[in-house]
């Protein structure tokens, strides 16, 4: 034991730089892994816990304000029908009103807000102050409102701001006094939001409305003895009752959970992938390091063997040295991740809408790190196989000299580019030294190029992302009460510019007894992203997403049953398209197809693609001059509310990846350089003796690493071209986009190359400061 300890101590002293580098690499891996795992698991755990605690049923659905004599009695009838189902435990009736946001900090939203009484006996939300401190006994007075945390990002709002909501054409203003944590619909990715008010305000809204009643939201609970999952449960209810015919949205717990954790899942997925790459890169650097150390310590190993240290003991002690340092790095990384979790949670809180715990996931993180350590230990042991081949005599007699072989890539030394050609020669003749740095760079560049490509593909304004969330692209949408008014608006628009009119709407229907978002369009050739089969041209055809195909077990040419109210029709799947609505759980049919599902078909909105979009303001002015808002109006294309959040998050991830990659490269360069430097010390002396300055030698040294960066980057870009669509596609599948293809943007390829070349150059130049200390005296034998 003492012998092993002495050897380890000696190794640590001698190869200090290498061991410290191993510790730093493991620090980066552990820091990223524990941080990402904690954020991901805490978010999902917190959301599950909140959904349970808040009192949401397994299905949450709102009953439409249908024209019946007694809406409450009508709802009771639906509830009774639901409660008669075997798997239903109970159904809570939650009174609410659904309002629209007209103004909050100058913004409006096309999505409704569900207004609930803050003292509701059915659902309970946590309420926080502006510092995200939980208010134990919150009070919301009349005229006040508590809004979701995500409003801070979506509407840039703060405590004290005034929100204007509209109900039945009447506007109401409320002062924002707190933030609420909504585990069901609180994420920026969910369109509809919940707000909390005083019961008196809700009563007032209802009394001033035409219908004079609240909208009933049903919270349907499944029996604990039921073996059904949420999808089966919903299908069962749809088969046995007609509740879906009267519900205008239905959200299951699993769907809500999916929406709420989607952002963290996607970005954690990306980062865990990145960490996996870092582990591979660590192994490569380690491999290089071990080989070099063995070469460097050839004589010492021989001497130790000569004095009776066995092969196994030598290997174990060397391995233990590396593992001790890796453990120290991982431990410090784990501890350093603690504050990171809090910082990231605070940053993402407005996006995910819930207050996530900052506790580090030590068990999961520890187990993951343990798995990495097992791989590390096996790998080191494998690499140390060479030690067995060293005999004491071989090692002690060893007098290795650098042997250089001619290379087909060799270029002559040129006077004009002397520094460049010398650096290139040093690189090409010693390429073995740089293999690990090249591979590491290839891996990192591949990831960086993919992330950059993803950012570019999203576009600055999220144009492509918008396409994922919209069935068709249009410039304006108009609505009117009558068909005559619509025809009139059509002619007003055409007075300003040439325009193509589209009818495009959506409804929830039942497909094979499951409620599903259904797009309806009169110009199916305008649908974005049909990638297999063809669009739905005829009124018995339906377009489906890959998600629907997989979950319903259907494909092109298959028949499905679509139900709406009392109507049921058979449709044939004509093709696959991509649309992220409801996480990909959606279909689209033609206007003709939809007409078959309703008794009375009425259009009250049209979309227009304008030839000249600069006249949008003029069109709006002309329409509002002729009609009041209750009759008709115009709205510009309304981007998905959470777009900015996603773009901000993906850009944030890109920055994080670049920063981690930079740290990783710096450590790699330090490791490679320390060995290289001792090998080349004599050469620096020679160059100095013939008149080279330290600065010139350092530039030449650093230039070699630019070659490393460029070679690695080229490999990385090739890998990106091969794997980009596959990797990013699997990430986008979580958004409901199953068929991602994006040609590599030139900037996405150039940016990582330039970035890595700069980092390699700067790191190598910094590390090469040792050259300053080398004098031609190293050449002199005393």
């Amino acid at each position, binding site marked *: 034991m003492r012998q092993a300890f002495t050897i380890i101590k000696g190794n640590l002293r001698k190869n200090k730089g290498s061991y410290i580098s191993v510790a730093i690499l493991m620090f980066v891996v552990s820091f990223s892994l524990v941080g990402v795992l904690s954020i991901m698991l805490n978010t999902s755990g917190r959301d599950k816990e909140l959904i349970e605690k808040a009192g949401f049923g397994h299905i949450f659905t709102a009953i439409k304000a249908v024209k019946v004599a007694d809406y409450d009695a009508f709802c009771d009838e639906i509830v009774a029908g639901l409660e008669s189902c075997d798997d239903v435990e109970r159904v809570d009736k939650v009174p609410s009103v659904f309002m629209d946001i007209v103004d909050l900090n100058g913004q409006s939203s096309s999505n409704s807000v569900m207004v609930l009484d803050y003292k509701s006996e059915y659902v309970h939300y946590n309420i926080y102050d502006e510092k995200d401190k939980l208010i134990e006994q919150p009070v919301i007075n009349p005229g006040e409102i508590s809004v979701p945390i995500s409003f801070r990002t979506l509407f840039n709002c703060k405590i004290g701001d005034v929100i204007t909501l509209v109900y039945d054409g009447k506007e109401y203003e409320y002062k924002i006094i707190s933030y609420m944590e909504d585990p069901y619909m609180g994420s920026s990715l969910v369109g509809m939001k919940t707000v909390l008010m005083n019961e008196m305000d809700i009563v007032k809204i209802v009394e001033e409305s035409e219908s004079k009643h609240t909208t009933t939201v049903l919270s349907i609970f499944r029996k604990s003895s039921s073996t059904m999952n949420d999808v089966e449960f919903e299908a069962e209810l749809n088969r046995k009752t007609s509740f879906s015919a009267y519900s205008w949205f239905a959200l299951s717990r699993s769907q809500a959970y999916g929406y709420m954790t989607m952002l963290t899942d996607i970005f954690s997925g990306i980062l865990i992938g990145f960490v996996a790459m870092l582990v591979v890169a660590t192994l490569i650097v380690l491999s290089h390091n071990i080989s070099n150390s063995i070469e460097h310590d050839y004589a010492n190993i021989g001497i130790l063997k000569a004095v009776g240290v066995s092969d196994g003991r030598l290997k174990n002690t060397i391995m233990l040295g590396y593992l001790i340092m890796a453990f120290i790095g991982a431990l410090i990384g784990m501890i350093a991740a603690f504050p990171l979790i809090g910082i990231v949670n605070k940053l993402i809180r407005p996006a995910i809408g819930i207050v996530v715990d900052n506790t580090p996931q030590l068990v999961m993180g520890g187990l993951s790190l343990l798995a990495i350590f097992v791989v590390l230990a096996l790998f080191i042991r494998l690499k140390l196989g060479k030690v067995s081949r060293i005999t004491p005599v071989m090692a002690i007699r060893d007098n290795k000299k650098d042997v250089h072989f001619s290379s087909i890539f060799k270029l002559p030394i040129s006077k004009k580019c002397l520094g460049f050609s010398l650096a290139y020669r*040093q690189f090409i003749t010693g390429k073995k030294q740089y293999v690990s740095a090249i591979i590491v760079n290839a891996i990192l560049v591949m990831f960086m190029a993919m992330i950059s490509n993803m950012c570019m593909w999203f576009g600055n304004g999220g144009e492509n992302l918008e396409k994922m969330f919209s069935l068709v692209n249009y410039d304006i949408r108009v609505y009117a009460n009558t068909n005559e008014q619509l025809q009139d608006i059509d002619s007003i628009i055409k007075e300003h510019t040439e325009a193509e009119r589209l009818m495009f709407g959506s409804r929830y229907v039942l497909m094979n007894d499951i409620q599903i978002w259904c797009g309806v369009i009169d110009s199916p050739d305008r649908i974005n992203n049909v990638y297999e089969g063809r669009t739905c041209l005829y009124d018995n055809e339906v377009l489906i997403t890959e998600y629907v195909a997989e979950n319903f077990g259907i494909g092109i040419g298959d028949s499905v049953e679509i139900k709406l109210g009392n109507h049921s029709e058979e449709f044939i799947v004509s093709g696959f398209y991509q649309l992220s609505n409801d996480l990909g759980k959606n279909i689209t049919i033609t206007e003709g197809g939809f007409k078959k599902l309703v008794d009375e078909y009425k259009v009250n909105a049209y979309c227009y693609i304008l030839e000249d979009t600069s006249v949008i303001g003029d069109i709006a002015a002309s329409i509002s001059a002729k009609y009041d808002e209750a009759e008709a109006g115009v709205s510009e294309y309304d981007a998905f509310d959470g777009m900015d959040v996603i773009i901000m998050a993906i850009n944030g991830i890109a920055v994080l990846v670049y920063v981690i990659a930079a740290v990783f490269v710096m450590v790699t360069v330090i490791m490679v350089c320390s060995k290289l430097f001792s090998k080349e010390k004599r*050469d620096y002396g*020679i160059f100095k003796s013939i008149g080279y300055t330290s600065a010139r030698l350092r530039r030449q040294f650093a230039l070699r690493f630019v070659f490393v960066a460029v070679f690695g980057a080229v490999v990385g870009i090739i890998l990106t071209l091969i794997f980009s669509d596959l990797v990013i596609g699997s990430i986008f599948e979580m958004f409901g986009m199953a068929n991602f293809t994006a040609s590599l943007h030139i900037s996405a390829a150039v940016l990582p190359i330039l970035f890595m070349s700069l980092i390699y150059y700067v790191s190598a130049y910094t590390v090469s400061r040792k050259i300053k200390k080398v*004098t031609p005296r190293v*050449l002199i034998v005393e």
Partner: protein
Amino acid sequence: MKKVILKAEKLCKSFANDGYQNHVLDNLELSLYEGDFTVIMGSSGSGKSTLLYSLSAMDAPTSGKVCYMDKEITGLAEKELAQFRAKEFGFVFQQVHLVSNLSLLENVLVPGYTDKDKSAKEVKQRAMELMVKMNIVDAKDRLPSQVSGGEAQRAAIARAVINEPGLLFADEPTGALNRKNTEEVLSLLSDINNNGQSILMVTHDVRAALRGNRLIYLEDGKICGEMELPPYDEKNVKEREIQVNSWLSAMHW
């Protein structure tokens, strides 16, 4: 009257070792003359190598100054020193110090290419002339590991003189060579000295010392004796050897 090219005044060099000051050079005064082949001899530890480093500004003296062509070079900044080394000084070392991944020709060309006043073509031409002169033209494209020690040292001499330095420093240039290669290298040094190249060589080999026309004996960091000889001529080597040996005996060699 010979022209002084390098002058050392009150040159001192001390090394601290465990708190103990070791004075290797002690107020040394020395002038080197243009066209001379000066040889410094002395017993081990006499300070001859230290003197060479101090004179060539490879190492800073503890005190005193060194002037090259009336310009003080002690205390020059690294950049200026580098320029001096590139243009005015040439170095040949005991071990063959060639850049291992450059061919012999490239090793010679690289310092030549640092001279901005010469075109690449001129540098190449001069390098080829030197290689022919040094009889290593056939090995010009070989790497240092692929040639003999003598060929490599000759290439090192070619590299040292490619920029036609004012002074060539040679530190035991034959110390690591066999007898045949030693003769070749010394002949080469004599040849270039005959062509006007000033040389300062440190050696403890009497046969090498015979090549000089001025011999300096160093002991305990001080010059103990000096001897002038006529230019080297192969015809009177024996007589020269006797002269030198007797002088060395007088110096307690």
